[in-house]
């Protein structure tokens, strides 16, 4: 069943504040084959926040994660993420179209720190392959 067009423009509630720990950054770096020597988190680390926001969105819309593939991802950073940052992500559905039985969901997520300052803006296209796609 196609996803409801009225979602376009809707923002979802911010994710619970997430404290970036050195341990978590080390785990992330290590999982991608690197070695963490302290300091800023890798450039793709904010996906942890963006993914949390996306999961909440998929849950709210009862969309099955296993039917989602990632179409594209962009980050633009105001500053690097560092251990000690307390971050939240707010997801907005930017666009929605249907192609060949798949929903192409354009999303943006703003990642902000405790003071409300933007740390990173991300956009992601999610391709939802329906059961009949």
């Amino acid at each position: 069943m196609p996803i409801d067009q009225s979602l376009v423009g809707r923002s979802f509630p911010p994710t619970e504040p997430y404290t970036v720990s050195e341990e978590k950054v080390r785990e992330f770096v290590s999982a991608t084959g690197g070695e963490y020597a302290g300091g800023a988190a890798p450039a793709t680390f904010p996906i942890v926040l963006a993914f949390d926001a996306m999961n909440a969105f998929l849950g709210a819309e009862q969309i099955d994660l296993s039917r989602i593939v990632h179409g594209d991802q962009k980050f633009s950073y105001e500053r690097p993420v560092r251990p000690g940052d307390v971050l939240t992500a707010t997801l907005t559905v930017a666009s929605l179209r249907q192609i060949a039985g798949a929903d192409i969901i354009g999303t943006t997520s703003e990642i902000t720190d405790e003071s409300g300052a933007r740390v990173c803006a991300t956009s992601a296209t999610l391709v939802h392959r329906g059961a009949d796609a």
Partner: protein
Amino acid sequence: MSASLRPGDALPPQVFVVRRSDLVRYAEASGDHNPIHQDEDVARSVGLPGVIAHGMFTMALAARAVDTWSDGAEVVELGCKFTKPVVVPDGDGVEVQVAGTVKDVADGRTTLALEVTCGGEKVLGMPRAVLRA
């Protein structure tokens, strides 16, 4: 830092091996537990050729290559399309290669065009990084 990056420079390709065990660790580290990255049956049931790497895992490898070339310069933009899935067979896994070219250096920004391939085929569309350098 990356002051040594000059327009037109070809950056030395870096090769990374991706195994299913890496995807399991990445799922833990990133929070992305989509079973298409771990379970062959689920991946096939949604029309994929087999277990595929998280797009964000491949993007993280691209970011690692950028980090090495730039000696850790701050990333201000990072983006790509996920155009072809990286299928990860059981056992020895697959190799992903990240190559790059310096496209532009201006106004304190260095733009890198990347080429990310698996088995000689491009897996990311227009992968690009902009550095503060």
